[in-house]
């Protein structure tokens, strides 16, 4: 046992070699946020001055801002002075053995078909699995390096590629963008950095899964992806298994930047802890995701399957600045028990002949509350632009809510915007039909829900799609019948 602990410590030390978790006792800042804390974080991470200044400006902006109240979610007030902004991630869980893990979680892993080794990683106990991942990650890293692709933690990028970071950090999501973005900009701890050079088509799907620290990135993650002219990358975020995370508040930022003829495809399967059946606990997920199609003919595509978190607040958006650029948003958001989701997208059409497509599928069960909130803005310069939005809600049970709040702003006569929304429920007739063919009610609901969500799920890479389907069925367990 002692041996194992030593091994864990050694591995974590070597992984977080940039001082993130070098000495657990010393690296926890006192609770609360102040300029001193920000100086401390920046110093600990040995950051160049521009990053420190960025953080400080964000902090000062944040102090003047108010927590937004327009969203249709309810939660007790968050005390921002009652949390650590720089802490060793989950030191306690590292000493756990599999036997100490909540059997309910293990049961869930089992149902998802996650191999034992991965279960250990997720529960924070695995050693060998981490070793496996290290080798996998390294292999990929070498392959990517040959192509000139940079794929590393953002803290590493700040050290190794400061010019790139300086040029793009905050270029899509300014530090003063919104309350949670400002908070993130002030205190972000880690996240991914990706740069795809001109004309390179990234041969594999990049995923946080291959980065060891991904399973334990903190509550203020920051991701920056840049696709240079004519390049392509598909990026997978998140974990396909449920994550038990001790952080209540998650305020992440993702910035995507595409140059001329470039394309970024960004997929998320989010399954953070949703709280228990009575609505206790669960993650508050306040995320700012935005892509800028800066160059002509560029494309950004967001796909998300959101089944977790007690509160989901995110609007992955596209700024279609380049002529002929394309923005896409495909989303499935499921709320069960007491979960609340307020999610959607914003499509800003600025360039000529820009196109956007929005497919949003909300599923509400239990006492879940699910809102789609979206903006389609066609500005005067966006001649001949097109948007198509389809926004459906599926209700399971009579205690849930489904809402849509689409804003459509059109300032140009040559553009066409179409928006359709429907609401439906799973009919007893359909369930009975499937029952009659020998399928249990639970499976029948799973089938129907997956059919309903298919248009979105088929946008996901294959392995992700399979997991997403399982998650949907799993998240609805016990909601019918």
């Amino acid at each position, binding site marked *: 046992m002692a041996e194992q602990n030593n091994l864990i410590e050694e591995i974590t030390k070597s992984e977080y070699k940039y001082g993130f978790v070098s000495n657990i006792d010393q690296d926890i800042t006192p609770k609360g946020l102040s300029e001193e804390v920000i100086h401390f974080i920046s110093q600990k991470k040995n950051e160049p001055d521009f990053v420190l200044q960025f953080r400080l400006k964000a902090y000062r902006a944040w102090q003047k801002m108010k927590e937004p109240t327009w969203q249709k979610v309810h939660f007790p007030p968050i005390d921002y002075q009652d949390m650590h902004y720089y802490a060793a991630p989950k030191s306690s869980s590292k000493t756990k053995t599999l036997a100490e893990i909540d059997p309910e979680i293990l049961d869930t892993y089992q149902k998802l078909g996650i191999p034992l080794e991965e279960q250990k990683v997720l529960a924070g106990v695995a050693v060998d699995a981490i070793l496996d991942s290290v080798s996998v990650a390294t292999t990929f890293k070498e392959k990517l390096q040959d192509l000139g692709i940079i794929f590393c933690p953002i803290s590493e990028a700040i050290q190794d590629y400061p010019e790139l970071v300086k040029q793009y950090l905050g270029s899509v999501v300014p530090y003063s963008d919104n309350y949670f973005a400002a908070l993130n900009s002030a205190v972000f701890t880690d996240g991914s950095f990706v740069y795809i050079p001109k004309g390179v088509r990234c041969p594999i799907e990049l995923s946080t899964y291959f980065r060891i620290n991904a399973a334990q990135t903190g509550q203020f993650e920051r991701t920056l992806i840049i696709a240079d002219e004519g390049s392509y990358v598909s990026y997978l975020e998140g974990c396909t298994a449920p994550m038990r995370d001790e952080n209540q508040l998650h305020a992440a930022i993702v910035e995507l930047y595409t140059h001329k003829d470039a394309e970024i495809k960004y997929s998320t399967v989010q399954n953070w802890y949703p709280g228990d059946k009575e609505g206790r606990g669960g993650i508050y997920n306040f995320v700012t995701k935005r892509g800028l199609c800066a160059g002509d003919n560029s494309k950004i595509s967001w796909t998300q399957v959101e089944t977790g978190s007690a509160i989901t607040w995110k609007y992955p958006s596209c700024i279609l600045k380049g002529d002929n650029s394309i923005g896409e948003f495909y989303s499935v958001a499921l709320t069960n028990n007491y979960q609340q989701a307020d999610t959607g997208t914003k499509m800003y059409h600025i360039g000529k002949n820009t196109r956007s497509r929005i497919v949003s599928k909300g599923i509400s069960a239990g006492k879940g509350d699910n809102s789609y909130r979206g903006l389609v803005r066609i500005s005067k310069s966006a001649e001949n632009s097109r948007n198509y939005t389809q926004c459906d*809600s599926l*209700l399971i049970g*009579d*205690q*849930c809510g489904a809402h849509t709040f689409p804003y*459509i*702003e059109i300032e140009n006569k040559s553009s066409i915007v179409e928006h359709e*929304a429907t609401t439906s429920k799973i009919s007893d007739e359909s369930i009975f039909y499937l029952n009659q063919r020998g399928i249990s009610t639970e499976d029948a609901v799973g089938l129907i829900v997956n059919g309903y969500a298919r248009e979105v799920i088929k946008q996901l890479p294959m392995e992700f799609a399979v997991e997403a389907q399982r998650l949907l069925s799993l998240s609805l367990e016990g909601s019918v019948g």
Partner: protein
Amino acid sequence: MKLNEIQENLNFLYKDGDSNERNILESVDFLKNNKVPNSKIELWKYTSLSSLQGIDFSLDAKEELNQLSITKILQDKDIPLNSIIIPIANGKLMNNSFEADDRFSIEIREIEKLNEYAKNYHPLQSVEFDYFYHLNTVLAQKEIHLQIHKNSDPIQIVLLFISQSDRNSFISPRVRIELEENSNAKIAYKFINLSESEILSNLFSEIVLKQNAILDFYVIEDGLENFQAINNINIVQERDSKLTSNSFTNNTKFIRNFLRLYFTDENCEAILNGLFIGNNKDLIDNHILIEHIKPNCHSNQLYKGILNDSSIGIFNGAILVHPNAQKTNAFQTNRNILTSDLAKIYTKPELEIYADDVKCSHGEATGFIDDEMLFYLRSRGISEENAKKLLLQAFAVDVLNKFQWVEIKEPIESHISANLEV
């Protein structure tokens, strides 16, 4: 007095002891604590009042109309003469101008309490939070009460809202209509402006449809120069009642229509048709809130807009389905055409649903005139301009054809045809 000066002049507008009505006191209180809405308020996000802010309005427009001028109006304007015509000049009822009838009665009353359904439900969109509702309450002080009697024969009534003043004036018409059980009425609100000065008309109207009542309702705002109107209309439907609401707005400088509709019992039906045409710098704002409170009710909206020149259109249609309002059918369609690069449209269709056994949908589409159709017409030798007019006419007539009241519909139709003459 300018709009933003109202707050500091409240004591002047409302002297203690003017009335002890609780409604009025509440409204005074609201105005004391709230400012004229601006674009930071969600419901006024796209509807700028700035064009009205600069105007210095008089609050006591004189009634200068006599029977002679009424007769003249009736000759000039497209008014269905086979109806009972009730003129309301600068917000005041002109009592001698119509024949009484056993199917209805009309009188001036103290302002009645807001219907309980119109309160407390949608927290943000309720008229209780509407600045102009409270302003109307304080300035109108009394209301015109029109009662359509129980089991009466079908009746057609035109309320002529006439404004005339030699100076910029702010008027506050206040009308309450009650359709008793099993009554059947066609009622039109027709606005006529004879003034060459600026008029801001701030109307509040509550209409109650009792059990099994049928109302075919029209709001016509056509060719009103120097006229800006804010119309807050609340309609409360009781069991088995049926409403058709028809709205037409054309060539009017500033219009804010807010129709709030409450289904308070089962088996209510409402069909809402609207056509709005903006020209020059017109701003036309249609807000609709439909609250399905009880099961088995049906609502269907069709609103179409044509925005020419630099006009701005706003369409905000909210449907709220309460818990237990099962078997609700609620549909909404909004179509808009922008014919100019300076025109703008902002739409926000909202669905808020808390019951599961419902059928709800909305569809929005905005675009230019369909290219293929245009090409087809032109390939048959029709000029581009005429082809566009034909298609716009078809677009508009689709809504007008749903207007049941022929005497109201026909003049509008010929008006549009004249505007879009080929």
